[in-house]
């Protein structure tokens, strides 16, 4: 529980943070600290940590806003703020709900969306929500910025598209994902991470599912979308059994992904119960999409967008 000595620096801006990460030996960025600090204390860090660059002073990375048609979530936004954001609940309910399922209250008050996605633990709750919400992740680096789709972001063994010296600064969501979202979690009894976590973003119009993005974390490394479920859902009337029929298509059999298992739950078992957890997420998401799609004409445009998005 006693980390080796390291240098500590606090950055006031993204530019300063990037400079510090470049200048200091073996520097690592610090957001909520829930992954980095335990790794430091238990000697579990993958590589030597010579310096910690604290990002908490960078104000512009905190909060949820709307930019044109997109929802913009600063990387330092806490889980608690995501879960309670009216904007996010309206525009990307799946991410708000998933954030509300992370850890406990203390963790949600401290941990950040950027830290969660960048640490990319296969059992973390936000990767599936990012995939379902069709997120694009903004990375800033010494040579400028770039954007990476969530579908291209997660790599095996907890890896991500973030390169050395880069910072994840923003999560951008198209207006498309909407309020028809839900996250269902079967919680790991020891770690509190997801044993099986299914995120669904569903749009419906006039009683028919027009778009669906569904993804899972906890079961596969890396987290992955569930295309069979999505295909089964789109065009389906939003009746009572839509969720059940689509959930039956949930399979963890994905190219490039391996099953995650441990002493509490083998990978094969997680894959077996994936449909049951998916059904919970889809039931809620489809119900919300129906209410959303039927209740508010102003959402019809978004629903059309979602239809296009779902077909990508």
């Amino acid at each position, binding site marked *: *529980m*006693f*980390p*080796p*000595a390291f240098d500590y620096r606090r950055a006031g801006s993204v530019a300063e943070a990037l400079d510090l990460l470049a200048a200091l030996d073996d520097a690592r960025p610090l957001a909520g600290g829930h992954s980095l600090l335990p790794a430091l204390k*238990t*000697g579990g860090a993958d590589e030597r940590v010579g310096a910690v660059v604290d990002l908490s002073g960078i104000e512009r990375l905190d909060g949820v806003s709307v930019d044109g048609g997109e929802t913009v979530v600063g990387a330092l936004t806490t889980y608690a703020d995501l879960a309670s954001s009216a904007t996010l609940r309206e525009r990307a309910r799946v991410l708000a709900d998933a954030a509300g399922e992370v850890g406990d209250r203390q963790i949600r008050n401290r941990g950040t969306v950027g830290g969660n996605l960048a640490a990319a633990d296969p059992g973390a709750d936000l990767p599936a929500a990012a995939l379902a919400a069709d997120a694009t992740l903004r990375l800033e680096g010494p040579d400028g910025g770039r954007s990476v789709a969530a579908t291209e972001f997660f790599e095996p063994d907890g890896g991500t598209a973030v390169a050395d010296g880069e910072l994840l600064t923003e999560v951008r969501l198209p207006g498309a994902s909407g309020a028809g979202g839900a996250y269902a979690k*079967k919680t*790991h*009894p*020891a*770690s*509190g991470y997801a*044993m099986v976590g299914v995120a669904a973003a569903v749009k419906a119009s006039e009683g028919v599912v027009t778009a669906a993005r569904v993804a899972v974390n906890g079961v596969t490394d890396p987290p992955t979308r569930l295309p069979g479920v999505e295909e089964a859902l789109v065009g389906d009337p939003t009746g009572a059994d839509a969720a059940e029929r689509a959930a039956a298509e949930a399979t963890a059999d994905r190219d490039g992904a391996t099953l995650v298992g*441990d*002493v*509490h*739950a*083998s990978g*094969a*078992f997680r*894959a*077996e*119960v994936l449909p*049951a*957890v998916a059904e919970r997420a889809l039931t809620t998401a489809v119900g919300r999409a129906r209410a959303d799609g039927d209740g508010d004409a102003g959402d019809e445009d978004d629903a059309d967008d979602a239809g296009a998005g779902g077909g990508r």
Partner: protein
Amino acid sequence: MSLTDAPDEQREADEAAGETDDEGGKLVGQGIDRREDAALLTGRATFTDDADAPRVAHLAFVRSEEAHADVEAVDTAAAEALDGVLAAYTWADVEASDAPGVLPISAEALDCDPPGHPVLARERVRYHGQPVAAVVAEDRYTARDGVEAVEVSYDPRPAVVDPVEARGADAPTLFEGAPDNVAVTTDLGDEAATDAAFAAADRTVEVKLENNRLIASALEPRAALAEYDAGSDELTVTMTSQSPHGHRRKLSETLGLPERSIRVVAPSVGGGFGHKGHHHPGEAAAAWAARRLGRPVKWTATRSGNYLAGAHGRDHRTTAKIAVDDDGTIRGLRADTDAGVGGYGLGGGASLPGWYGSLLSSEYAVDAVHCRTRSVFTTTAPVHSYRGAGRPEAIYVTERLVDAAAREVGMDPAELRRRNLIDPDAFPYETPTGATYDSGDYEPALDVALEAVDYEAVKAAPDRDDDGRYRGVGLACMVESTGSGFETGLVRAHPDGTVTVYAGTHSHGQGHGTTYAQIVADELGVPYDDIEVAEGDTERVPTGTGTFGSRSTVVGGNAVAESAADVREKATRIAAHRLDADPADVTLADGTFSAPDGSAVGFADVAAAAHGGDRPAGMPPGLEATTAYESEATAYSFGTHAVEVRVDADTGEVDVETYVAVDDCGERVNPTILDGQVHGGVAQGVGQARSEHAVYGDDGELLTGSMDRYALPRAASVPHVETRATVTPSPHNDLGVKGIGEAGTIAAPPAVVNAVLDALEPLGVDSVDMPLTDERVWRAIHGEPGR
């Protein structure tokens, strides 16, 4: 017996009674708030790691990364070269000192004579995490850096982590004197009589089960601060102890020092569950190093260190059978168990498993019982008593068997239990395995549990709930042996009339400061607030045994009660002298002695007179009494726990809908504290049933060495526990009390498992092993996943 079947009303009555304290009501029986909690809850209580000393140095262990290996070399040079490292010790340093350096083992109870656990590895390591070297440094960080710098080379040997496999011909041998790794085989009961009973019975049923290995997860890890005074040659060890006098004796043996030179102080202790009563390397190594260095040395276990090397619990593999007639009469019980005891015997830990069979007949009038237990060394952390210590293992076997028998003969499990309960007129009752129950009235507790869980309604309801989940209800009847050994209680009235009670037990969550003060206030007749309870210091408390095995209220409570009565008797004689009255006519209430003529003298004046003032001629001064109390016989608590569950067959998820605990611990000193004991015990029992499991890989690596891998119950996974009570006093002690500290850990596992098996009966499931992880439940229903 009497019945308290309306807990809320009872609690209100307790509280109402509490308001009448000043009018002379008895405090025993009242659920008054624990006086300890204000300090504990506001962070003002002092724990071992809070203790400090000038020039204190910090010790950390290099722990074995191998489960079983010869230690070829330990190179400490790089560690010793670090700035701030004071020393790096290996077994060679211990061996060269005047200390034996070995934790004693109770080998006389074994079939072999293995060496005890060395504080640092001697040539060989026998479990992952065994201390190999110790680094002492100016601060904790440097000590950890030093640990990283020590190089150990191992020549690995094969590991064996399962006690059944460890007896196999191919298994590696841990100790020369035990080629099959069996430390001792224990037989309880009459094997021939049991054979005959089984042959005569209408039916027999077999159950194979595992009592899963657990890790004591006290909130506060073990710790010690050792200070050696070379001038007086005295060693003071402040440590996390349930048993200060017990640890003093064990430290004396390991260090080669007389007990009179060692003082053990245990300040507030944050939970123990047994493992803080055992003798481990950490505390002994810190004490040894403090003498060696001439500086105070502190050692505080890391959580992972505690998990790797703190004594584990349970780890039984049992094949058990029950013989039953078609009318539900149980004819016989038998069990054959392999119990893992780890890589070393810690004290009596290696022979402890064999005694579990003594409670195998539980509440039932069974004439023939036989239990054979092999205690088996495995290359794992030492196993010793963990909250319940044999009783949970026994009752789990019994209650699984009883349910299996009910299923076999087609009888309701509650009815089969009822038919076999020991008759209330049969006490004292001697069991076939040699236990003598003091008192019991089992059927009312069963009835209260059935009523509270609405048993008949649940049984009559459809197999599946409206949402499709399967519905089940399970029972566990149990007995608990409590209050063994001796304990001391010193009650001392100070000249100002205030009182200190010194007891050889040590509270680590049990609330002795409250319960002993309640008992002494009643016996002595002085106000509760004038009574302080002191424990946890071998220099303040004359002698004692400690707190474990649900014993403190039974032996400690009666010890302080007897002393209080002795003090009252002497005080009354002094008061009578002062009041010119016959002692038989003098009464004491609320701290005032009164004579029939209306004259009165306060307890404080009497206490002052006792210390050099006016007292009867020839009476020696002072106002105190010490009792070394030994119960004439074990007190057997009992009860029935009832659980209603729902099981989701698609996911394996189990939800406990209702949990009812009916416990009878004789007279109830403080019902609030008793409820708390039951709540905590049930939480631990549910943890064992649902999620806790110390798992070793085949190579001997502990795979659950941290809290994110070892699944303790969380607040959200512990059910609401409805507590009820019946009251059947023990005839063997004046207070009429029995212990209750372990009841929840005993009853909860079988109650939960039986409920789940009841739910899954329509699916043809008749067995599932703890912990009932979602996957295990799912597999019990669906078989191997992925097919």
